[in-house]
């Protein structure tokens, strides 16, 4: 598929390039924001509301109850099944840069006291692309939700399928969608949260299969890349094409939720769908 044609903007990384890391420049309004203030504001620009991209680790940290998260399958790592040019090097670089083994972070935790299975994709790890390991971790997360009769929440941030794994990466669409089908059949809640960007193979599988689909403001959401579409139709696309707002207008997602309202919104949904609460005396 052709979702990566839009050059990734490593906006959220800019802060790391600032001297001393004390200030960050907002890619939208260009204001310099005090790093501590940005952190307090969940990496949302206090001046213009721009939602900086979050790593999977930060996503879990700002979403779940503190100390409640237990990671699954941390040691599951990619191999190079096709012998694809530079793939092992790219993997190694992504591991070094992110300190993570792969682009999916999965586990169990509590959200406002509701016990839930969670998966978050990390756009900073090879564009959050889905190869065998991402597919396997998402499928295992869904299967654990099934076994333990818990809800599943997936935060997507991905450029699509990982082409360095060829058709094996395409098959992850089938593997993850089949696992999600079992959740639906067993009447277990599955909530999909689309973060910037959610494109390609991830949209053509689990991200669009939620009972309820949420998106962060301004997130890029779409299947094909803007440039290849413009080449095909021979004209420029409007600026808001494939944004979360565009998707809501076209009936593709349920709601756009600013980051500071995500926890209360997810809590309301978990309560509505009858998610179990963590008992007071036990750790989550």
């Amino acid at each position: 598929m052709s979702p990566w044609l839009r050059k990734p903007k490593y906006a959220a990384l800019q802060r790391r390039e600032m001297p001393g890391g004390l200030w960050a420049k907002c890619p939208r309004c260009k204001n310099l924001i005090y790093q501590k203030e940005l952190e307090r504001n969940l990496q949302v620009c206090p001046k213009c509301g721009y939602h900086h991209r979050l790593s999977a680790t930060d996503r879990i940290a700002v979403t779940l109850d503190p100390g409640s998260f237990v990671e699954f399958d941390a040691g599951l790592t990619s191999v190079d099944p096709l012998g694809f040019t530079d793939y092992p090097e790219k993997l190694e670089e992504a591991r070094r840069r992110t300190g993570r083994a792969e682009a999916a972070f999965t586990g169990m935790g509590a959200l406002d006291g509701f016990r839930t299975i969670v998966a978050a994709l990390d756009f900073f790890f090879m564009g959050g692309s889905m190869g065998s390991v991402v597919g396997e971790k998402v499928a295992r997360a869904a299967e654990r939700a099934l076994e333990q009769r818990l809800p599943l929440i997936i935060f997507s941030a991905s450029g699509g399928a990982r082409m360095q794994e060829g058709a094996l990466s395409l098959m992850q669409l089938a593997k993850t969608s089949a696992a999600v089908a079992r959740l639906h059949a067993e009447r277990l809640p599955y909530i999909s949260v689309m973060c910037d960007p959610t494109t390609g193979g991830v949209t053509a599988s689990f991200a669009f299969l939620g009972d309820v689909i949420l998106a962060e403001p301004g997130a890029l959401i779409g299947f094909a890349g803007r440039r290849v579409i413009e080449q095909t139709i021979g004209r420029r696309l409007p600026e808001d094409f494939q944004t979360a707002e565009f998707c809501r207008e076209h009936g593709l997602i349920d709601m756009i939720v600013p980051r500071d309202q995500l926890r209360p919104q997810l809590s309301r949904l978990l309560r509505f769908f009858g998610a179990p609460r963590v008992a007071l005396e036990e750790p989550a």
Partner: protein
Amino acid sequence: MAANPLPTPDSGVPPPRPAAPRLSPWEIVQLARHPQRPKAPDFIFHLVRDFTELHGDRLFRDDPALLAGIGWFEDQPVAVIGPYKGRDTKENLAHNFGMPNPEGYRKALRVMKLAEKYGYPVLSFIDTPAAFPGDEAEERGQAQAIAQNIMEMSTLHTPILVVITGEGGSGGALAMGVGDAVLMLQYAIYTVIPPEGCAAILWRDVSRAKEAAEALRLTAWDLTGLGIIDEIIPEPEGGAHQDPDAATAAVREALGRHLQAVKDVPIDRLLDLRYEKYRRMGRQMESLARG
């Protein structure tokens, strides 16, 4: 290594296994795209007796890029789906080069659901370059349409047999490609992205498509090794277009054999096997958790 855990019928004759090709992956890409190659509708019209085309997704419009209908395969009622790739520019323009819009995938799903209602098998013939990069396809939710098909096919309560006859391009192909057996013509291709797109993204150079075709492992032999397809259907010397009747006969033989194999498997067992089939796909390494 075959991906298919289904029993093979005890006919005493092992399925044909074509020898590894003397052609390069790029030459195979050219054969898969050959203008004279029999297209999915050709296979459908020749293999399905008393074919009745069904139109429309009941939501938006009838997608001319996707052919769907009902008919008889031998003495078995079946539902059939396949992209409508044309043989010349005029046909291709009329059928959007065999690239469905969301309404095409939704029409396919509607007809598969019809088959499910009667327990009739679904035959899916795949020949589509890729999902369609169009603005309206995005507005109407092509990602959602593809995701929905993939999910529904994983639990469709009736047998699904898939034959990749030409180009199996990306999510567009998989939206018609989840099944109990996935067969592939000798010179068909199946890939996560067309080689040109891969070269453009990875190396910013479309002219390196030939290199990408090799790197992507998109031939039937590669995919058998990766456990993604179940059987290679042999083609006549020089490709299916050299002798379309022979190619059709080979597809008929293979489909007949696989249909026989799935027919008597109880549906719950078949669905478990289908789940396991896709569940196993992928290569990874378990190691001790870091830190």
